[in-house]
């Protein structure tokens, strides 16, 4: 029996996996970094960039707040006045928990995985609201290029610390690039503004020992796959059924792999049942096949919003492995 890591490599290289890669099993994701990413439900917090996030009680996640009082970047032409990259605490003490976690992982079995969120596109709209960020691409393209360069440098500075402290084998990087039905911006605009940033970021990780780049975007983004390949993504996590995943595998398998095709919204809700989960898992596994595909909920971490759904999917994937391998 192959290790989780070997089985993943066989799957994405078009070799001979002995079972489906089961969701996030190949990555041990290190979240104990000294950067606050989330607040508990029913609270709000200001992150190190000054962006306020609110998670109202009873909601499924947190949202950036963009009223006049809270919007960080009020005028893109004056971005230098408003946007200040935070200094990351690089003390041994601050990184102790993350380093201990990394050291505890068997690197033969799993990838020690660094986690980065939000990405450059999301940072733009978290700082200034989606509407402002998208219109600025047309109205103030030079300022947007400058802002994106600045955010990219900040990401690279953080990457240096992550690499130095954790020596990760994989990177799990979040940046949502679309809605459920389309990409937020056109492929041409993506190529101009965001492709260069990601080519730099992902090349830096790969040049420093990271073997595997896993990018999360739980959205439609089929029209951006050629750029994903160009920027060095190995696995697109969060691929929704709206992308026609089997078609993408046929077209791009061997250059990139696809992780998802089980839309969280369809299986992860209060009235979920193991039968609904099993049906979706079976559909995904049978339609997408054994190579270049990892069956997975589209959610961006290894859990579900409603208790039991993630584990139920894991069990259903194991059953499909027995049936299909």
């Amino acid at each position: 029996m192959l290790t989780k890591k070997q089985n993943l490599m066989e799957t994405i290289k078009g070799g001979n996996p002995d079972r489906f890669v089961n969701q996030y099993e190949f990555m041990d994701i290190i979240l104990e970094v000294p950067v606050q990413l989330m607040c508990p439900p029913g609270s709000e917090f200001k992150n190190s960039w000054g962006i306020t996030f609110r998670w109202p009680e009873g909601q499924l996640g947190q949202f950036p707040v963009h009223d006049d009082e809270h919007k960080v970047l009020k005028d893109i032409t004056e971005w230098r006045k408003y946007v200040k990259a935070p200094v990351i605490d690089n003390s041994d003490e601050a990184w102790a928990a993350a380093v201990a976690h990394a050291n505890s992982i068997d690197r033969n079995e799993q990838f020690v995985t660094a986690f980065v969120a939000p990405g450059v596109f999301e940072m733009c709209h978290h700082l200034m609201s989606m509407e402002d960020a998208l219109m600025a691409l047309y109205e103030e393209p030079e300022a947007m290029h400058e802002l994106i360069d600045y955010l990219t440098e900040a990401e690279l500075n953080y990457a240096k610390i992550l690499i130095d402290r954790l020596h990760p084998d994989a990177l799990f990087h979040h940046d949502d690039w679309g809605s459920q039905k389309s990409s937020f911006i056109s492929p041409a605009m993506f190529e101009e503004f965001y492709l260069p940033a990601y080519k730099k970021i992902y090349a830096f990780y790969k040049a420093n020992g990271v073997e595997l780049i896993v990018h999360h975007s739980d959205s439609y983004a089929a029209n951006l796959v050629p750029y994903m390949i160009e920027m060095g993504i190995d696995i697109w996590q969060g691929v929704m059924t709206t992308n026609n995943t089997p078609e993408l595998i046929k077209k791009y398998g061997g250059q990139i792999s696809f992780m998802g095709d089980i839309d969280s919204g369809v299986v992860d809700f209060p009235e979920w049942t193991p039968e609904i989960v099993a049906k979706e898992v079976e559909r995904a596994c049978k339609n997408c096949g054994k190579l270049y595909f990892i069956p997975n909920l589209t959610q961006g971490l290894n859990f579900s919003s409603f208790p039991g759904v993630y584990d139920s999917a894991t069990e259903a994937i194991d059953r499909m492995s027995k049936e299909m391998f």
Partner: protein
Amino acid sequence: MTKITEVKAKVEAGKAKLVPGLVQEALDEGSAAGDILQAMIDSMGVVGEKFSAGEVFVPEMLMAAKAMSKGVDVLKPLLTGTSTSSLGTCVIGTVQGDLHDIGKNLVAMMIESAGFKVVDLGVDVSAEKFVNAVKEQENVTIVACSGLLTTTLPAMKETVQTLKTSGLTGFKVIVGGAPVSQEMADEIGADGFAPDAGSAAVKAKELVSA
């Protein structure tokens, strides 16, 4: 190309800086304010169709709406008395339990560009708040409910049913959002469904004209 045709083309292309000047030139040429407004509404219809077809994306739609808004600013003094919202008022909001606003904002923008007055209630809007808005606003012809999460579909159902049993009349309810389908809209008693912002404006007009 006549000035009015040029206005139409530049709104479609999202040229917010050029449109006000062209609108003024069209007026100077003798075009009626109402005709220029209609040309811009038609442009937004084209943009909406292209968005639905995946030919343009959110930034293009936002820029076209901004261009139209700048053009309307020039026309406003001339349109006093001749209502720019002859289609009535659309009350819009994202249903309770859901904080997503991008899709809802796009729909609001497209519906406004189609000629409705829009009252945006924001996100996480209770059924009661929708009902109160229908009572308080004048000539409400459309209530638009948005929801992105599967988990908030029960709230959407409750909103539609509360509106329908409120005893208030004169308006139609339209629903939309990623997990919403025509089948689901029918099931919860909505009058209309639209899969995206472009078709939402078309559907709203269709329902009001019916």
